[in-house]
């Protein structure tokens, strides 16, 4: 069919344009990270010779000397802790909102929405002052607490949308069939709720992994500085060299896991980000 083949061509062009748009900056970073120090300023999109020197320099000297290993560990531990705590707290709250009737339900939802709009910069000054007084400045909890605050609205909305879809009658049905309440919860409800919780966890992790403002404001050393903040402080091998190569290599190292994640859980992430927008 004439019309069918024309449409096919148009969609192909659309898809190719979207792919180029999304991938060029990532491919460029990979290219810069693979260039040799001599060829890094040649301005070519595809490196003329490939070297892994930039990656080696990142990990040189082990945890004490390397400018990258400690921030990477900090980033992973802080983002994971935020994710676990945030999902636990949000699950309790979302369960109550989705299943129980109580006054204040709307207030909590509206409040969570307000916090999602809150400008983080407005809390930086007070937090800086409070954290130094409380001994939380430049510590893991000092970052995990603000990350919790700003990721909870996201997690709650996502989980409420998922929990509303769960056929809770199955829990009673299982109990009628002789299951104990705990068995009914563990064998029926948990498997149904797990995909939603997992999706919310991915979104929270990406949020905590991405943050820069809190990370540079509330840390002062590698004790708790995360990767985004440490990238801003990277220096070259000597005072005459730009740290371009090592920044690109570090950027690739922290980006690859996210891309793998996205490849595997594409469907989940899309449904998580769009779930609540459709149903009220």
């Amino acid at each position, binding site marked *: 069919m004439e019309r069918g083949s024309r449409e096919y061509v148009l969609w192909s062009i659309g898809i190719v344009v979207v792919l180029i748009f999304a991938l060029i900056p990532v491919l460029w970073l990979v290219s810069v990270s693979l260039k040799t120090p001599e060829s890094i300023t040649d301005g070519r999109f595809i490196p003329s010779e490939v070297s892994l020197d930039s990656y080696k320099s990142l990990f040189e000297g082990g945890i004490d000397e390397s400018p990258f290993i400690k921030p990477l560990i900090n980033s992973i531990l802080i983002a994971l802790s935020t994710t676990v705590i945030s999902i636990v707290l949000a699950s309790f709250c979302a369960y109550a909102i989705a299943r129980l*009737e109580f006054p204040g*339900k709307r207030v909590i939802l509206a409040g*969570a929405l307000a916090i*999602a709009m*809150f400008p983080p*910069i407005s809390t930086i000054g007070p937090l800086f002052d409070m954290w130094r007084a409380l001994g939380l400045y430049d510590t893991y909890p000092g970052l995990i607490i603000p990350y919790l605050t700003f990721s909870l609205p*996201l997690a709650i909305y996502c989980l409420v949308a998922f929990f509303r879809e769960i056929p809770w009658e199955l829990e009673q049905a299982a109990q009628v069939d002789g299951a104990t309440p705990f068995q009914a919860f563990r064998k029926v409800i948990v498997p149904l709720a797990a995909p939603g919780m997992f999706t919310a966890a991915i*979104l929270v992790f990406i949020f905590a992994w991405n943050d820069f403002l809190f990370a540079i404001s509330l840390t002062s050393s590698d004790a708790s500085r995360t990767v985004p903040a440490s990238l*801003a402080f990277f220096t070259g091998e000597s005072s005459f060299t730009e740290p371009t190569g090592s920044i690109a290599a570090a950027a690739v190292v922290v980006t690859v896991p996210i*891309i793998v994640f996205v490849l595997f859980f594409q469907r989940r992430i899309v449904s998580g980000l769009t779930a609540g927008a459709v149903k009220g």
Partner: protein
Amino acid sequence: MEAHVPAAGSARTRSEHRLAWLLCAPAVIAMLAVTAYPIVYAIALSVQQIDLRFPDEGGFVGLDNYTSVLSSQLWWTDVFNTVFLTVVTVSIELVLGMAIALVMHRAIFGRGVVRTAVLIPYGIITVVSAFAWQFAFAPDSGFVNNLPLISDEMDWFGGRFSSFAVIIMAEVWKTTPFMALLLLAGLVTIDGQLYEAAKVDGASAWQRFTRITLPLMKPAILVALLFRTLDAFRVFDTIYIMTAGAQDTESVSILGFNQLISRLNLGLGSAVSVLIFICVLIIATLYVKLLGTRVEEGRPVK
């Protein structure tokens, strides 16, 4: 919101309320701890002279900090920059995001590939995206100046509006996917039969888009615009990495950060913070007015 459990009696209702509040309390406390209390504290700091470099001086100064901020040229330059960047990036994103949402929704094939590719910018750290674009446009190491039609000598970060151009490109790249996904959520709710009926009546593809898609998507578009506008207004990471505010490219968030963290002037910096908070409040109120009650059906994602 439908009632899930019918209230059997007041005792049961009361225990259900108690359980609900117990379940919600930890999350509510965690959300208030770093927002409600600090904003009150910020207001308290903003009416005092507090400079951590000179701890002995200080005291209540009333609205002096606000007067200094509002009468400074820098604040108004930064407000202009922030509004300019917000309006330009969000407008470009709306058009691009809509196009990508249509491709994701209607493509006959390759939907999975497109969705995966689009999620990559969403998942990437903003600082990393800023570096990628900065390296691409850098006069010495970048590839952009080697492209045809672009001068080899172009110093992108040497001027104000050429810096803005790169900042806008990086921001648009990073955040369009989010816009596209929110718009996609609106697109999937539209009944496909409407298009079929319009086709039968002889409506062109463009007519179907402007007469069916756009009007039905109005709430989804407004929700997406609300979240993206507020997010764009807080722009910090990209500018900090690319220019650190040089060439008059500072945003209000960078100004606040410089006063609070770099200069440790908590009084003046807090006045800036409170003013930013008021700006966000005004933007949010305007959108909520436009949306009516529908805003609660939207979702707060970053």
